[in-house]
């Protein structure tokens, strides 16, 4: 599964994208965030207020309780500020 990061999530993690291979216990987007947080300081900083993080699966907004099975691309980013 490809993970992509934007804005300060990208800056804090230190890269725009990577391939992830989470273990079977990681079922939802929220589980994936919790799993990523444990991977290092940058991830911990990016997801410190994990409730504010927005998630998209295959370029469609989802809530953090969405299941990630079958996802090709999962994106993490702050609340949007376009327009």
């Amino acid at each position, binding site marked *: 599964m490809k993970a992509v990061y*934007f*804005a300060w999530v990208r800056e804090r993690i230190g890269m725009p994208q990577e391939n992830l291979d989470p273990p079977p216990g990681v079922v939802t987007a929220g589980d994936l965030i919790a799993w990523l947080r444990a991977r290092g300081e940058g991830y911990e900083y990016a997801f410190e207020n994990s409730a504010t993080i927005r998630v*998209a699966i295959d370029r469609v907004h989802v809530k953090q309780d969405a299941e990630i099975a079958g996802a090709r691309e999962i994106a993490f980013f*702050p609340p*949007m500020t*376009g*327009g």
Partner: protein
Amino acid sequence: MTGPRATIRVQAEPFDAAAESAALTAGRRDLGAVVTFTGLCRDEDGRLAALEIEHYPGMAEAEIARVAAQAEARWPLGGLCIIHRHGLIAPGDPIVLVVTASRHRAAAFEAACFLMDYLKTSAPFWKKEHFADGTAGDWVAAKAADEAAAGRWDREG
């Protein structure tokens, strides 16, 4: 009114609001109202040198199209144009364009407001400030007021 002409673009280049508006209305005799919204980069009383706009390629276009389809389902639109820029934008320069055309003014006004409210809170774009004094800028925080503005369309719908 025939189906709307819809233009949706995400681009680094500036846009020509007048040309987009003219393209929507050219040859039409059934449109009574055209509303054009242009969002500009402010310098925040001289504090900002520029805004840098990051976006999620692919999803940005898809999300704008989704919001545009909602507007078309909700109001009788004869034409629609949404253009959102990314990259570095100087104060005074345009960031976003929304044009709505309809038979009557209420539909054109409401659809343009709705599109801007939804673009603000659901299209994957993020603004980073570049300060005029040379210090590093920071990401613009999302505003509760923008969430509230988008939410009112749910209640009214």
